[in-house]
């Protein structure tokens, strides 16, 4: 298997964290996402933990609850289709949220 050696591409971002750092947001204190924790806890697949392109959803290992970082949301809506049983996702209020400069 010929895995090429990555050149020194320090400006080419790889992780979601590094990429989100480049995205402009107008954060809203009020969250536009609601997770029904009891349903999430009972769900074995927990697809939102990996399907979200912006890592909005993480697991609180201690409580088993889903932590929601709504300020990272790129507003694609994938979570609501992948896990409609426990994710209630709506658009942020007008003017708030992601502000793509290039799109």
């Amino acid at each position, binding site marked *: *298997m*010929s*895995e*090429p050696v*990555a*050149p020194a*591409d320090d*400006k*080419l*971002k*790889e*992780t*979601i964290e*590094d*990429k*989100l750092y*480049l*995205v402009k947001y*107008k954060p809203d204190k009020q969250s536009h996402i609601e997770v029904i924790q009891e349903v999430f806890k009972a769900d074995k*697949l927990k*697809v939102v933990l*990996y*399907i*979200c*392109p*912006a890592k909005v959803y993480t697991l609180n290992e201690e409580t088993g609850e889903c932590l929601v970082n709504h300020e990272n949301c*790129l*507003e*694609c*809506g*994938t979570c*609501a*289709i*992948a896990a*409609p049983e426990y994710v209630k996702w*709506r*658009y*942020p*209020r*007008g*003017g708030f*949220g*992601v*502000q*793509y*400069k*290039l*799109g």
Partner: protein
Amino acid sequence: MSDSEKFDCLVVGAGPAGISAALALARAGIQVAVLERGEYPGAKNVMGGILFTTVLNKLLPEFWKQAPVERHVTQRRFSMLSRDGEVALDFRTGAYNEPPYNHTWTVLRSKFDRWFAEQAEAAGVMIVPGMMVSELLVENGKVVGVKTEPGGDELRSDVVISAEGVNSFLAEQVGLRRPHDPRHMAVAVKEVIALPASVIEDRFRISGDEGSAWEVFGQAVQGTFGSGFVYTNKDSISIGVGSTIHDMTRHRLNPNEVLEQFKRHPAIRPLVRGGETLEYAAHMIPEGGFTHLPRMVMDGLILTGDAAGLVNASHYHEGSNLAMASGLYAAETVVEAKRRGDFSAATLSQYANKLEHSFVLQDLRKFQRVSAYFNENPHTLRDYPDVMVRLLSDYFTVSEKPKAEIEKEVIRKFRSEIGVLNLVKDVFKIGRAMR
């Protein structure tokens, strides 16, 4: 805007569908406002990056002289990746260098949509940014306006055109569509990566304003039902991947990880090397096609663009042009409804007829079985690229073995790995799906 003010038409969303509709309406003397939830038009708008411009050129002839478009596409490339190999169809022609440039341009949507909205504003459209439509106002089964956030204000109109985009909450609210199906909805992520224009031109073998569009299947998306893309902008490239949410979740994939694998592939890595990531974006694509369209109209409401599921998700990958066409047909329909003073579903259903008689629904009908085929036959995109690269690799491997013997071996391998009958069956089925 006072509470008592009533518009002829409210358009929800300042994307290609909404702006096209509003521009055409304003030109016809209809009083129209576009409500956009972003702080500016384009703030929420994302696509891979190819805008097909037959409709745009009708609305704004020779738009390319002013519009912030990137490059006209003279080279189309379709390929399949195996784990470390590639088989490609690469096409280019100088004919696309002449106006109207084969109606194919790379664009960055936030820039383009902002400009497009300005053209509508100049024609008399009122654009209201920072206003999210939370629900439709419905009275006696008829849409009579919208409710907005923040503020909870109610705005009234004779008719609402929803150009809300892929999530289409409003269509769901009034029962025009069923809940989205993860098998027919793709999630896509992309990066815009800055590179000097001269480097892009060398890497993609293009000159001047020429552009290149790559669609990449197979291991580009881990063999899932989707594809990767690389499009050249002026001094950046747009690179991304998209697959159905069903397939992504089935394989427990994260979209960004799929994109990173794509960027690391030996056939792709040299294209992005030394670049600088400028922006990262995510968006969904409605891929249900003809068999999963919503009802397009009801009393006082028309659905357009992605909100109406108008995407050609075959290898053509068209959407924004279908959106513009639908916006234009919605506007024509509203003009006629206004003349009659009748905004009932019966009158607005002219819109559906217009779509039926245009490339929009004719193309969606032609490709209606594509989505079902790939959902039912996941092996096609998962296994064939690997097998093809292996067979070609054997075929081209240099040795002193007589060529006749090599050919026999390759044919024998082909028979055992895929089998003539299976290939013929799959080709037949794909062919039928595309007919």
